[in-house]
């Protein structure tokens, strides 16, 4: 066990964080502080906290300004950004729409839906099941986690946290461009049914890119905030959240600004991706039925990527129309895909997925000690809830039409921003009381799971339990901590193995070690131990955990610092390129103005130079050219040549005027 698991030695004392504070990255604010006299003013102003919805397929960022939350648009003017990260052979990292656009030609290095892999082991059933659908390679990292492998560099591999980090960095950038200031503090959302490892891995993703993650909030809870801030209504609310990769159901009690989560349930591996996969399979089957050639289309990455995109498009279309056409010309050689798909067909083939949400729904209601009819309002969040069949089913279940006032794509980010403003003190009289979604417990004799903190307990919460020794002179105790609802530990998720060491040698049963299990407001678990006799903190070692070691995190932060430097260089370079473009405009303007006095050969020579320079500019902007010296030289050369031509032209114009004057009669 010791040799194969990845060791993470960390000492937990009292309530310190599991991951020690990381060095922060970009620093204008620190410089601001360092300047001395302004410190006071800076402290009193509430620190802005942005809210990021890190989704499986799309992400969004929002902020509260003057008590009004708003979504921030990216540079393309979109309110959401695809959670897609691509690596090119040139070494570029693309995020968002640009990454999505090139997915067909670079499918092995285009990473999508990685949230379904975050905080998971390679051997997990869900991971193994996904591998067959994914266009990229999933590998087993040395600690057993699922990582992603590229074909660039020397087959560089990345953890899902790092990919999430790239997306978060992009969202941070979107916020900074909009707010015109540094965005350092963030609330990040996760599916309510995420376990400790998945939450921890998401937090790490933020820390890797220099974000101070002030809170991890559950997505349906965030959505309820977006709804509640708007409506100011009290009552029982059910949030049905079916996104790209995960399903959550939460039941909340809203009472004068206090949002108390009564229960939560879900499936962290059920969402739009699964619907797409069903449809892809259907399209492939349909094609094979009429295929003339013998190529196995499932082995053709580009064709499969095109089918996937067509499937997603058709699925979205069928939320608005009853019939759509799936058309993919020249899918292989001279064969096409072209057929009509009806909404009812899609409903039928995905019915097993829709039905999968019913069980968690029932459990959440009964865990909240409620009947379906007690629910006052139902809201639906996540892109998949646009599917009419799903809306109908949820409506039938509660015997109530779902409220459509919240935007399914934006409510989560809006809610995250509101929680950010609550934490910064900007919004008062609002409080979230969230719960832990899974029962926390330890392994007892025979592999039985012994619960310590039941699911749906309000967080933060703490429980203490006393351990003793079973043998005379025993100096250490092993405690295995699990999360889950099954009676046997092997069916639940191992959160960590703790070893209480340095227990003074005494007869069995005499030492009393008090162990505290804390679940903080992020839903992340901390364990600490105290030897009751000596009053000393007992040593705890954690291992076998999912996630990254401190050293790994630091290494990656260093790397990302370097990328920040690289970003800075790119930015500088692009400034030079912009300057060069200005010179081009000036030159063109001048040639126009002085056209009469410029020789044809001069025009030609300058025209040639201008077209070369324009190529250099567009190549620089697309990333094909990076050469500061060249750009600077071009600036000088172009400026000089234009000046010379203008001077010549000036001379000619003066000469011409003289000539005219000398011919004029007095």
């Amino acid at each position, binding site marked *: 066990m010791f040799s194969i698991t990845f060791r993470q030695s960390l000492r937990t004392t009292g309530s310190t964080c599991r991951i020690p504070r990381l060095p922060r990255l970009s620093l204008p604010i620190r410089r601001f502080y360092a300047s001395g006299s302004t410190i006071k003013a800076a402290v009193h102003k509430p620190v802005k906290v942005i809210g990021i919805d890190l989704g499986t397929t799309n992400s969004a960022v929002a902020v509260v300004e003057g008590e009004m939350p708003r979504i921030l648009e990216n540079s393309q003017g979109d309110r959401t950004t695809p959670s897609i990260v691509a690596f090119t052979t040139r070494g570029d990292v693309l995020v968002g729409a640009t990454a999505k656009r090139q997915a067909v030609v670079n499918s092995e290095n285009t990473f999508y839906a990685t949230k379904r892999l975050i905080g998971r082991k390679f051997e997990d059933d869900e991971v193994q099941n996904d591998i067959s659908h994914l266009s990229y390679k999933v590998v087993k990292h040395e600690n057993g986690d699922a990582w992603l492998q590229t074909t660039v560099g020397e087959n560089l591999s990345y953890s899902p946290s790092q990919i999430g980090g790239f997306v978060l960095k992009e969202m941070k950038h979107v916020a900074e461009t909009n707010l015109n200031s540094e965005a350092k503090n963030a609330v990040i959302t996760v599916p309510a049914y995420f376990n400790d490892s998945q939450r921890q891995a998401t937090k790490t993703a933020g820390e890797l890119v220099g974000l101070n993650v002030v809170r991890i909030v559950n997505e349906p809870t965030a959505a309820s905030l977006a709804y509640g801030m708007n409506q100011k209504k009290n009552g029982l609310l059910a949030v049905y959240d079916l996104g790209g990769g995960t399903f959550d159901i939460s039941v909340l009690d809203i009472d*004068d600004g206090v949002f108390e989560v009564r229960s939560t349930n879900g499936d962290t591996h059920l969402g739009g991706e699964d619907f797409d996969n069903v449809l892809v399979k259907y399209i492939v089957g349909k094609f094979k039925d009429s295929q003339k050639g013998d190529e196995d289309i499932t082995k053709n990455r580009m064709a499969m990527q095109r089918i996937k995109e067509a499937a997603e498009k058709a699925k979205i279309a069928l939320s608005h129309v009853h019939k759509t056409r799936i058309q993919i010309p020249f899918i292989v050689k001279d064969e096409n895909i072209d057929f009509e798909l009806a909404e009812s067909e899609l409903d039928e083939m995905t019915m097993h997925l829709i039905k999968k949400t019913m069980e968690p729904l029932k459990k959440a209601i009964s865990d909240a000690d409620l009947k379906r009819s007690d629910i006052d309002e139902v809201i639906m969040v996540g892109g998949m809830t646009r599917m009419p069949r799903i809306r109908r089913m949820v409506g039938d279940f509660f015997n109530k039409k779902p409220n459509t006032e919240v935007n399914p794509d934006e409510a989560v980010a809006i809610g995250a921003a509101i929680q950010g403003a609550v934490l910064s003190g900007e919004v008062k*009289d609002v*409080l979230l009381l969230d719960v832990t979604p899974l029962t926390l417990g330890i392994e007892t004799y025979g592999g039985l799971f012994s619960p310590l903190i039941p699911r749906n307990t309000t967080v*933060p919460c703490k429980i*203490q339990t006393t351990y003793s020794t079973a043998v005379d002179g025993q100096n250490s105790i092993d405690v295995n901590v699990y999360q889950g609802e099954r009676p046997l530990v092997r069916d639940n998720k191992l959160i960590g193995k703790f070893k209480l060491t340095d227990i003074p040698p005494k007869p069995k049963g005499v030492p009393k070690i008090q162990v505290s299990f804390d679940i903080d407001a992020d839903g992340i678990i901390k364990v600490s131990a105290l030897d009751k006799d000596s009053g000393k903190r007992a040593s705890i070692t954690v291992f076998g955990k999912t996630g990254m070691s401190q050293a790994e995190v630091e290494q990656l932060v260093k790397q990302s610092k370097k990328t920040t430097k690289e970003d800075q260089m790119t930015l500088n370079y692009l400034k030079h390129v912009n300057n060069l473009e200005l010179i081009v405009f000036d030159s063109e303007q001048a040639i126009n103005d002085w056209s009469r006095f410029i020789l044809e050969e001069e025009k030609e020579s300058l025209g040639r130079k201008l077209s070369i320079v324009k190529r250099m500019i567009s190549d620089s902007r697309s990333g094909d050219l990076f050469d500061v010296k060249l750009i600077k030289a071009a600036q000088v050369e172009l400026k000089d040549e234009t000046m010379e031509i203008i001077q010549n032209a000036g001379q000619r114009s003066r000469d011409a005027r003289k000539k005219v004057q000398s011919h004029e009669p007095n």
Partner: protein
Amino acid sequence: MAVPFPDIDPYEELGVSAKDSPPTVRKAYFKLCLKYHPDKLGKVTEKSKGEYKTRFERIQFSYAILGNIKRRKRYDDTGSLDDDDFLAEDFNWKDLFHRYNSIEVTEEM
């Protein structure tokens, strides 16, 4: 499992009486949360944060008892702060056995 605050009077802690209805108890709990919840301590000095933390834990513990109909009844009847379900009169032993009986026996075990 140890009871963290063995001497606590949950009614006193939440400022309610034994006659108060569940909605009244909940309202009182929410009011206290708005004041003592860790998210609401922006203006509290570092020194008193520890006090607030303990106070909030006491509030949580009190509401865990009074907010649950069964546990509240047991406290009213016996004064027990324990949360051990096995002690409850209506504990469903059949359910428990069923839970363990449903475990599939395989060779591994």
